């Protein structure tokens, strides 16, 4: 079988091997704590990668992705409760609605580039959280929604989570290496120059936004099924939006797999450090952001590249296009 030129055999084998190990892992151990931690990591990986499609590949940093996560979660939960959709279909339904919602606010706001887009996303996140909190019909208001409990479902969701993370990673790879990814990098570098050589920026940006939002929605649906209880303050929370920014920054914004690595670090950090000092977590997030940006803007991936003495301008953290 011949592969498209942008798929490297090595990456494919590596990914396959990692998935295989993780897939059979739970059959070899019965550590429920580890099982739970890994499942949370999977969902973090999938969401961080989806955030990176917009924030890294296109260079449009979103501080409001919890809007899609929350909406997808509640729509999926409603789909299961009220429409009796099978679980996976409910996730997909939630994902589609979240993707459509992302387009609704994002299509106009993507005209803004760089920092201005980011501020607008803070607004989107806050507005969505407020509406979500008061919209009882969808979200159950401040008392939230409970999903029907199935015995063993939580244990089984490990494999669904693994599949979701693998899917997001494969999509990241495909997105970055295809001609679509190339066009996105060109838009990130200089949107006007890209248009001048035939790149239809608006449609491509919308496409990426939809994909990113839809994946977020699916993650939200997964989260709802996993915890079987969700409430708007948590699902739409600002902290949640920041966590994906942080995963991206720690791992390396704009890299293919960096955010996945960032998600692993983040989940560990939260589990071991922040659980002990819950009143310090915002500040710790902030200090991490400042340190990474000041000393290694490409995060862990940047450190790795440095160790191997490689220069990769394609990963440059460019922001506002064509300015100055």
């Amino acid at each position, binding site marked *: 079988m011949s592969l*498209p*030129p942008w798929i490297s055999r090595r990456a494919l084998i590596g990914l396959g091997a990692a998935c295989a190990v993780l897939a059979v892992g739970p059959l070899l151990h019965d550590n429920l704590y580890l099982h739970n931690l890994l499942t949370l990591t999977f969902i973090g990986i999938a969401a961080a990668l989806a955030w990176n499609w917009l924030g890294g590949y296109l260079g449009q940093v979103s501080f409001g992705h919890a809007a899609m996560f929350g909406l997808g979660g509640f729509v999926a939960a409603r789909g299961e409760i009220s429409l009796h959709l099978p679980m996976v279909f409910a996730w997909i339904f939630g994902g589609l609605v979240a993707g459509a919602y992302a387009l609704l606010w994002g299509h106009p706001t993507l005209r803004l580039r760089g920092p201005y887009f980011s501020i607008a996303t803070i607004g989107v996140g806050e507005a969505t959280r407020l509406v979500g909190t008061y919209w009882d019909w969808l979200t159950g208001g401040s008392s939230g929604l409970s999903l029907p409990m199935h015995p063993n479902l939580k244990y089984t969701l490990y494999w669904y989570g693994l599949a979701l993370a693998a899917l997001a990673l494969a999509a990241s790879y495909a997105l970055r290496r295809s*001609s679509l990814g*190339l*066009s996105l*990098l*060109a838009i*990130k*570098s*200089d949107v*006007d*120059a*890209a*248009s*001048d*050589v*035939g*790149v*239809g*920026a608006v449609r491509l940006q919308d496409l990426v936004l939809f994909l990113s939002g839809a994946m977020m929605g699916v993650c939200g649906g997964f989260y709802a099924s996993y915890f079987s209880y969700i409430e708007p303050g948590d699902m739409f929370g600002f902290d949640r939006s920041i966590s994906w920014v942080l995963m991206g920054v720690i791992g390396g914004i704009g890299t293919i797999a960096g955010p996945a690595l960032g998600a692993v670090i983040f989940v560990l950090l939260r589990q071991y450090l922040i659980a002990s000092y819950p009143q310090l977590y915002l500040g710790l997030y902030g200090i991490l952001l400042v340190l990474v940006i000041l000393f290694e803007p490409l995060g862990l991936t940047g450190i790795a590249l440095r160790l191997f003495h490689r220069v990769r*301008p*394609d*990963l*440059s953290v*460019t922001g506002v296009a*064509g300015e100055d």
Partner: protein
Amino acid sequence: MAIALRAQGLSKRFGGLKAVDEVTLQLAEGQILGLIGPNGAGKSTCFSMLAGSTPPTAGRVFLGETEITGLPAFRAARAGVVRTHQIVRPFANLTLFENALVAAVQCAGRDHAGARALALEALDFAGLSARQHQYPAGLTLAGRKRLEMARALACNPRVLLLDEVIAGVNPAEAQEMATLILRIRDERKVSIIMTEHVMAAVMRLCEQVVVLDAGKLIASGVPREIVQNPEVISAYLGKKHEH
């Protein structure tokens, strides 16, 4: 002779200012047309309107028989009108090959192999194929101007709009650039409109020259006549006070 690009009564206002005022011009198939004028005459605005980056306030643009007025830049580029920028704008995060490839994939459709071939050929044409895996940061100004042209060529244009591609490079490089422009016309059958400050280049390359001053077209003709036209001379050297 067939007409490659035609602009009719093209105008652009910014508030009360008429940046371009009723400009009509024609580019014949296989021609190199010079668009000259003092600073602020409206050349760049004119280019932007022809290439679709700025919608005109009034007037129409035709590519051959097809009207392309008001098409956004990416559609105009796909239709065959591609511009370069006076201040070069390479994609700094892409290799030279990828710079050209971005342009080629938009025009060669979904055929990946075809796009790669087109991109490579365009780089080769501009003399950059030896450096195809390098990044633009490593290029000299002349190199970047070549890259700008290679990227435009990778779109397979019918009409190329070259904005000051010679100004700012040293004489030897200017010579090479002029040769490259002629080759683009002769070997790739592309019709060209160029703005240029370097008069010697305009005289050598262009069959026809149109002159803009304060947004108005004040003269057009063969270069030899243009440089003797008193109105053109006064536009360049400054008028005596008339009011």
